[in-house]
C-alpha cells in the first residue's frame, strides 16, 4: 500500500506537467535511439570483421631452402606468439591442389603451374586472435629468414576496424552531450514538480514524514521518464534493426543479415538500464539542495 502510494504520487507529478515531461522523454528517446542504433550498426560491421577473423590467414610464403624440420620449428615458434591463434602448414602439393581449385576455369594458368609445380611456394597460414592484430604479425614475420613474402588482406580490415572505433567514439559523444541534456531536462521536470507540491511537502515534513518518503516519488518520476524514453528508443531501433544492418554491412549481398534476437535483447536491457540511470541522475540533480530536512 505504501509503495502504491509513492507510485501514485509519482504518476500524479507526471500528469501535472505533461509538456516538460514530454521534452525530457524526447531527449532520452533521441539519445538512446542514436546509442542503440549505433550499437546495431557496430554489430553489423563487427560481423564483417568477424568474417575476416574466420577466413583471414596472414600468409607467410616460405623459401624453398627450408627443411621440414626448419618449417616445424618455425611453425611452433609462431604458434607461441601472443597474437596468434593458429598456424597451419601448407605444403607445395597442397598449394598446387588449391591452385587447381581456385583457377579450375582457367586452364592456361593451370598448364603453366603444372609444367613446373615448384614455382608455387609452401606457406604458413596464420590466424590472428583478432583481425586487427594482423599488422603486428606481419611486422614480425617479414624479418624472419626463410620467409620470402608476407601477404594479408590488410586494407579491408583496417577500414572496418577504423569505422568500428569511430562509431564507438560517436556513441560516447552522444552519451556525453545528449545525456547531459537529458539529465538537465529531467532535473527541470523534478524542480517543477517539487515547486508545484511545495505546500504539500512542507506539511509532510511538519508532520514527520520520513525524508525518503518525501523523496522517492520524485526519484520514481525521473526514473519513469528515463525508462519511457528508453522503451520507445528500444522499440524504434528494434523495428528497424534489420534495415540498419543491411545498410551498413558490406557483405549484405552475400546473405540476409538477421540481427540475432538475443543480442538485441541483451543490448536492449542495457539501454533500458541506462535510461533508468539517466532518470535517476536527473532527479537526483533536480532534488539537489531541496527536500532537505
Amino acid at each position, binding site marked *: *500500500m*505504501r509503495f502504491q*502510494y509513492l507510485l501514485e504520487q509519482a504518476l500524479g507529478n507526471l500528469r501535472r506537467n505533461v509538456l516538460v515531461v514530454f521534452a525530457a522523454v524526447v531527449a532520452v528517446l533521441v539519445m538512446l535511439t542514436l546509442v542503440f542504433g549505433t550499437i546495431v550498426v557496430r554489430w553489423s560491421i563487427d560481423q564483417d570483421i568477424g568474417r575476416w577473423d574466420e577466413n583471414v590467414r596472414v600468409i607467410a610464403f616460405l623459401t624453398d631452402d627450408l627443411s621440414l624440420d626448419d618449417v616445424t620449428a618455425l611453425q611452433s615458434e609462431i604458434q607461441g606468439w601472443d597474437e596468434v591463434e593458429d598456424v597451419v602448414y601448407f605444403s607445395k602439393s597442397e598449394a598446387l591442389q588449391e591452385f587447381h581449385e581456385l583457377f579450375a576455369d582457367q586452364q592456361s594458368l593451370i598448364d603453366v603451374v603444372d609444367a613446373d609445380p615448384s614455382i608455387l611456394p609452401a606457406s604458413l597460414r596464420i590466424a590472428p586472435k583478432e583481425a586487427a592484430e594482423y599488422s603486428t604479425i606481419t611486422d614480425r614475420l617479414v624479418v624472419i629468414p626463410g620467409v620470402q613474402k608476407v601477404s594479408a588482406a590488410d586494407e579491408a580490415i583496417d577500414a572496418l576496424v577504423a569505422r568500428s572505433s569511430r562509431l564507438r567514439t560517436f556513441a560516447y559523444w552522444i552519451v556525453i552531450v545528449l545525456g547531459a541534456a537529458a539529465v538537465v531536462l529531467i532535473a527541470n521536470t523534478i524542480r517543477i514538480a517539487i515547486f508545484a507540491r511545495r*505546500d*504539500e511537502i*512542507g*506539511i*509532510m*515534513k*511538519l*508532520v*514527520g*514524514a*520520513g*525524508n525518503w*518518503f518525501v523523496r522517492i516519488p520524485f526519484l520514481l518520476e525521473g526514473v519513469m521518464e528515463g525508462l519511457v524514453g528508453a522503451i520507445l528508443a528500444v522499440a524504434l531501433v528494434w523495428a528497424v534493426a534489420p534495415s540498419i544492418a543491411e545498410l551498413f554491412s558490406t557483405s549484405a549481398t552475400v546473405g540476409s543479415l538477421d540481427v540475432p534476437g538475443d543480442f538485441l535483447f541483451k543490448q536492449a536491457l542495457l539501454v533500458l538500464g541506462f535510461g533508468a540511470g539517466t532518470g535517476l541522475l536527473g532527479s537526483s540533480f533536480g532534488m539537489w539542495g531541496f527536500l*532537505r*530536512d
Partner: protein
Amino acid sequence: MIRLQDVAKVYDGGTVAVRDVNLEIAKGEFVFLVGPSGSGKSTLIRLMLRQELPTEGSIWVAGKEITSLPGWKVPLLRRSIGTVFQDFKLLPTKTVHENVAFALEVIGRPKHVIRGQVPQVLKLVGLAAKADRLPNQLSGGEQQRVSIARAFVNRPLILLADEPTGNLDPATSIGIMRLLDRINRTGTTVVMATHDHAIVDAMRRRVVALERGRVVRDQSRGAYDQSAQLSDEFEATEG
C-alpha cells in the same frame, strides 16, 4: 518536556533573532510566548521544531537533545510534536477528512488506524459533520479547527501553535482557545506564540515575554502587558 539552555540564533547577515534564552517547560504545561513582532517568538517555535538550528546553546525536546540530532531522525522528532499556524496550511484540493488523514498516511500509519482515528479527532474539534467539505467551503475558525485536528490526530506530546488566532475574529478565537485548552487537559504540553492581549489575559496561564530576542519576563498565571507584571512585582515587594 522542553528545555532551552543559553540559546542564541543569529541569522546570516547578523540579525540576532534570540539570545541568552533559558527556558524550561514541564510536561502538561500551557505556555504563552508573547511579545511584539520580531521579538523572536516564531524563531523559538522554529528552533523547537528543528526547522532552524541555534547558533549557540542546546535544546531538549521530549528527552532528546535536538541540535545534534542526525537529519534522518528529525522526522521522528516531529511526529511527537503537533504544529498549528496562523495560515492553517491546509491542502486546498483535499477534503477535511483527507487533510487530517494525510498527516497519518505520510508517516505510514495503516489504513484501519486512519479510519478509526480521523473521525474521532474531527468529532473532538466539532467538525464531524463537515468531513467531506473542502477547506474553501469552511470559515476561518473551522479551517483552524481542521489544522488543530491534523496536529493532534497523532496524539503528540507537544503542540506548538504560532499565532493560531492571528487571522480570526475575537469570538472565533475564543472557540479555538477552548479547543487548545481541552487538548492541554489531555496532558499535551502546549506552547503558543501570540500577541493577542485579550486571550492571554483571559486564560491566565504561564507567560514568557520576549523583547528583541531576550526573555524579559517569565510568569506563571501571567497577563500580556506590563501592568500585570508591575502589579505582580508590587505584590512581591509588598510580601
